[in-house]
């Protein structure tokens, strides 16, 4: 029953990403994470020189910053920036940017907090490193909650 509930609340975008990882044998999951890392879009120019608009994800070992926008229709957009020398962290950020952007506030807030544990990276990446992604998701959800228009 619990699993079914998770199924129904996990947005299609994040479910697809999870399935992509789980379909691969473990060593190849790192390559997929690297692909996500390379796909992380640059943060919009309006954030340049506005460090105060970005939130640092302290749970990550590398300097990664996120920003959340919620538009008038309560749709979420997430942006992130992390150095090239930190591809693992960039990969985590890229998964969440792709998975959360475009969702409604309610859909995004329904994403299970333990989503990072469900994508099959615990052994390939190590739980310690994966906790950085959990922190990133928690901070994104906190910002979404604070920025939502409806209540």
């Amino acid at each position, binding site marked *: 029953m619990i699993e079914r509930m998770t199924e129904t609340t996990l947005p299609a975008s994040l479910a697809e990403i999870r399935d992509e990882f789980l379909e691969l044998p473990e060593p190849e999951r790192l390559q997929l994470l690297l692909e996500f890392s390379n796909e992380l879009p640059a943060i919009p120019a309006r954030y340049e020189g506005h460090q105060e608009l970005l939130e640092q994800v302290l749970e990550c*070992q590398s300097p990664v910053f996120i920003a959340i926008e919620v538009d008038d229709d309560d749709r979420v957009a997430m942006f992130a920036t992390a150095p090239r020398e930190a591809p*693992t962290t960039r990969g985590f950020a890229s998964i969440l940017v792709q998975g959360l952007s475009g969702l409604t506030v309610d859909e995004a807030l329904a994403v299970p907090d333990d989503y990072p544990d469900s994508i099959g990276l615990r052994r390939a990446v190590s739980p*310690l490193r994966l906790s950085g992604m959990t922190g990133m998701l928690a901070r994104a959800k906190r910002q979404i909650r604070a920025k939502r228009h409806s209540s």
Partner: protein
Amino acid sequence: MTVEFDTSSPKFAEYAEPGRLVTGEWLEARLGQPGLVVVESDEDVLLYETGHIPGAVKVDWHTELNDPVVRDYVDGKGFAELLSSKGISRDDTVVIYGDKNNWWAAYALWVFSLFGHEDVRLLDGGRDKWIAEGRPITTEPTVRERTEYPVVERDDSVLRAYKDDVLAHLGNPLIDVRSPEEYNGSRTSAPAYPEEGALRAGHIPTAKSVPWARAVAEDGGFKPRAELDAIYREEAGLSDGEPIIAYCRIGERSSHTWFVLKHLLGFENVRNYDGSWTEWGSAVRVPIVTGDAPGEVPGRS
């Protein structure tokens, strides 16, 4: 088969064991030579995949050198399997390099040393210096033929200190290589690093604060012998013949300092306390000092 030492650097010649380091130039000229295996060991588990020294294999500290269940390193069987799968033989010359000024490379070198792998060296300046010098990097996967690395049990008695060893050691030199903020107790993890699991902040009584990065020169390599002597012998007061223990948060930054003390300055009895602050700062009833002064050995009754 072992590869000759790098004797090209006047800086290396001053060190106690000049053969423990190689320059980028020396390594580039020998890539692919039989008996030489290049190992990359990084903090970031994916960095190797973004580009590595041609022919280098990756050894990951967290997913490969650590036991997945117990907080310990792999055992002799696990290490033999790991090195066999990487295509490393017991008598190969292993040159390790990595990100973050070789933190994890030094950590891997220390673990290799626990298993008595004799010829293991560091690339001075690590990954960043290699790239800064414009040397080759490739994303081509490395294929090495599997070897039969022998099962050798790990010897923790000489190079590794456990918590009880540190308690018994109090009164002898201890070097805390963490940041000043971690040392004086204002935080439990390095600035910009996550707070990860120590319940108390401060340092082990009598430990001197010598942050690891003080051993690093501007080019990312190790400082010359005379500068290291000034820091560790004159300033921190270390002298030959004394037993020394270095620690940090989980033992990676202190591996870097351990390498400096043991191989570059030639102190004979240097151990790394890998339990470090994440163990000491959460252990029940161990003595802790806060503030910038080293503090005193607590009275024993």
